[in-house]
Each structure stands twice: as C-alpha cells, then as structure tokens.
C-alpha cells in the first residue's frame, strides 16, 4: 500500500512540468507574427481556445488521479468529503 503510494508520488512529479507547459504555451508563442485566418478567426486564437480546452481536460485528470491530494500530503480517499479530518493525513509518511 505504502509502496504504491510512493510510486504514485514519484509519477505525480510529472505534473510539475506539465503545468509549466500548460501555462507557458497558453500563449501561442510558435505563432508569433503569423497572420493566417482560419474559419473566420486568426489561427492563433484557435490555438488558445484549443489550449484552454486541453487545460480543462488535464486539470480534470489531475483531480481524478488523486494527485490533487497527494500533492499536499493528503490521502485521496479520506478527503472525499472533508479535508478537516486529521485522519486523512499520511501519518508517518511525512515528507
């Protein structure tokens, strides 16, 4: 159980660069100076719209995977109704 938790914790670290990329490229930097119009709007606006959709999808995945709680040292299942319960904490596994 604990081992699984530690493995999860390590793969959760991938969220840090993921979030960094999501923030950085919400601005369509690769399209700097591009003036093509696609389907009635400048193409870089479409990039931004699609990117924010991607953000919502990945944020939802972040929440569903339990990384939301693990990131703050909480246990996902115990936190479902309230984070106030101290038993929802990770006990001896404090980082």
């Amino acid at each position, binding site marked *: 159980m604990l081992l699984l938790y530690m493995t999860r914790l390590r793969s959760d670290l991938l969220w840090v660069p993921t*979030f960094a990329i*999501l*923030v950085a490229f*919400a*601005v*369509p930097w690769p*399209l*700097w*100076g*591009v*003036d093509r*119009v696609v*389907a*009635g*709007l*400048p193409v*870089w*606006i479409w990039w*931004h*719209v699609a*990117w*924010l*959709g991607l*953000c*919502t999808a990945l*944020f*939802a995945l*972040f*929440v569903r995977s339990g990384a*939301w*709680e693990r*990131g*703050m*040292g*909480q246990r996902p299942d115990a*936190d*479902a*109704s*309230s*984070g*106030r319960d*101290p038993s929802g*904490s*990770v*006990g*001896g*596994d*404090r*980082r």
Partner: protein
Amino acid sequence: MTLGLSLGIVVGYLVVALALGLVAYRVSETTAEDYYLASRSIGTLVLLFTTFATLLSAFTFFGGPNLAYAAGPEWLVVMGTLDGVLFAVLWYVIGYKQWLIGARNGYVTLGEMLGDRFGSTGLRALVAGVSLLWLFPYVMLQQMGAGEALVGLTDGAVPYWGGAALITGFIILYVTVAGLRGVAWTDTLQGLFMLSVVWIAAAWVVSSLGGVGAATEGMLAARPEFGSFGGGTYTPGFIVSTAITIAFGVTMFPQINQRFFVAKSAETLKRSFALWPVLVLLLFLPAFMLGAWAAGTPVEVPDGANVLPVVLSEYAPAWLAAVVIAGAMAAMMSSSDSMLLSGSSYFTRDLYRPLVDANASERREAWIARIGVATFATLAFVASLFRPGTLIEVGGTAFSGFALLALPVTCALYWPRTTRTGMIAGVAVPQATYLFVVLSSVLPLVPTLPRTVLGGWDVALGLMALSGALTVGVSLLTAPTEESDASRFAVTGD
C-alpha cells in the same frame, strides 16, 4: 426606446439583486463566520460563480474590449492565459493549501492566518493595511466603469457622477445588509446572466456584420496588424509581465483570497479548478472579440467612452444594450460588494480588533464594519470623480500591488523556515517601493518614475522577484521568533 425604459432595466436589475441579498440575509445567522464566510458552506456552482463574478468587473467588461479595440485581440490570449491557466494553477498551489490550513485553524482572513503563524500582530496589520490600500483603486475602477456605462447608455442624460453615485449607493446598501451568503447568491445569478447576455450580444452584432468571417475581414481591412499575433502594445515583455502580475495579484485580492476559506469541501475546490479554464474562455472570447471586431466597423467611439455600449447601441436593439449594461453594472456591483465585504473583515478583524479594541462586542464589530464600508466606498467614489487613468491602468496598478504579496505568502505556506522578520521585509520593502513609483506621477517634488522598462516589462515584476528574494534571504539571516509556530501551517500529519 425611451431613456426611461433603459434606465428602468438597469435600476430594476439592481433592485432584484438587492432583494435576493435581503432574502439571503433572512436565512443567515448573525455570527461573523456566517457574515463573512457563509459558515464555510459554499458549494461548487456557487463557489465557481462567486469567484467568477468577482473576477469579472469593469476591468473585464469594459477595459478588456476597449484594449482589444485599440490594440488588437491579443488581450484575449493575455487574459485567458493568466486567468484561465495560471490562476487555476495558483488556485491549487495557494488556494487549496490555504483551505486546508484555514479549515483546521478557523481562519477568516489572510492577515489572521499569517499573524497567527508568525505570532505577530504587526504582520497581521501590515498585510491587512496593504490589502486595503490596493483595494481602493479597484473599487474606484468599478465606480468609474459604472459612471461611463450610464453616460454611454443614456447619451449623457445621466452624467458620469450620477452613474458612479448610483452604484456606490447600491453597493453600500447591499453589503451592509446581506453578508457573504447574499453576495454569493447574487454572484451566481449575475455570473449566469453575464455569460448568457454577452453571447446574445455577440451573436446579434456578428449577424448584423454578416457573420464571423465578415466581421474578421472588416477588422483586418481597417487594422491589418490585428491579424498577426504580437506586435504593437503586445510585446513579449508586456504579455509575460501582465499575465504574471495579474494572476498572482488576483490570488491576493481580499475577495478572492477569502474565497479560499469558504468552500464546503475539497470536492468543491477540485470541481471549480477543472472547470475554470473553459468558463473563463466562454466569457472572454465573445467580450474581447466584440471589442476587436468593432475596430472594423464605422462606429465612432468618443474619448473616454467604452467600446462595448457604443457598438451595441449601433448594432443591437436598445433594450438589448440596456440589458448588457445592466449585466455589466451587475458585474461591477458584485465585484465591489465582494471586495468591500472582504475589506471590511480585514479592517475589523486585523486592524480594529487587534489594535484598537480587542474586547469589542460582535454587535459593535458589525457596526464598525458597516461604517467602514460606507466610508471606504464614499471616498473611492470621490476619487473616481477625478478619473486618474484608463480602466486598464487603474486596474493594473491594483493587481500589481496585490501581486507583491503573493511570493512572501507562498513562502510562508510552504517553507517552515520562513521567519517573521523575513515576511515583514518581503512585504514592506517592495510595497513601499511600488507605492513610491505609483505616487511619483502625482508627487510634485520627485520626477515621474517609469512603470515599465525595456519594451513593456512591468517594474512590478522585478519587485515581485525582490519580494521573494527578501523573504527568503532575510529569513535565512534571522532566527524564528518564540511566538511563531510553523506547525500551524502543517497539513500532512499531526
């Protein structure tokens, strides 16, 4: 369409919102926790919309389209990035952490949380004082927006000061009778209302212009540079520093920061987090594109007027223009009442109680809060009559001021080694410097200092870096005081 009907729609809407607040007040308890936090019982839809409506103020509704009209639709990307993505990440990093800490220790304000952690009334008062300072221009911004909106809607029949006074009156009345439960309820109503109305308005204008493609073609014919990404106002420095200062600033806004304490459960925070980027986009896309498309129409926007009402009065029926203005006024009202409500809790809990009268009764505290709100709103109203800058300039100043708090607070939340002296240095020095830069344009004896350097980089961004460096550096050089207690912020185990 008569002037009376337009005004009737606007005032009628404000009255409905007020009535809703009164109903909420009737069901609320009279404790401070209920007044300010609705007993920490806010659910997902209401939390999402109360945060949403609070963010969406004259800055978004009028300032945004104005900038898109003048400088191009890139503003959509700037605001979408900072509000939809960066703020969402901070919602987790700062907001969820604060929720965990707040739920354990029963905090109501940011200053209270920090003051308790570092055992320092001084720090508590400093954070509250700084927050109230930057709240002032932002409240003013709403009054400026309302004043301009009614001038635009009524062709000057209602003077600028009249619109500003009208909204000031409603805000004071509203906050003093309703408390957060009322504010949260009407925010939800207003959020849904604004979203629908702005889409209807966009659809109406676009169909008058012959569709999205034709609207964009018209825009590009008049302003070819709007089509390519970047350029003009939108330098990389402007985009990056605006996005960072506003997103961090938003988290420290009293009304937003206090929202981090009100969620009923973590579930509420999680759902709001995931929905946030799309919700933000749904509002910004039509609002800012309307501003950009307006550049391709023959519409003349007079100096000091807002694009959105002018375009609507040209291309949409008068009742729709009135409804949109009502929605915008509602946005400003919900922004202001949330701000003033949170501001009043900062004032009574972090300044009045600790420094003036620790034993004030609840009843007395409630009265002090209400008098404080009325005074603050009235002073902001008076200042708004001088119109010291554009909506974006006044708003940007407030955001940057708040942004300077964000890194010291984050440091305190995550780094147990942070000391009281480190916090005070990290907050006070950059704040004093920024205030000096802002005031240098009005002080007679000093030269006006530049607000941006090297092609659009905001000096506030440099000061943010300074605030972080000072907090960490001074903390390393000083020892924690005896009164401080890092375990107050521990959330992982006991």
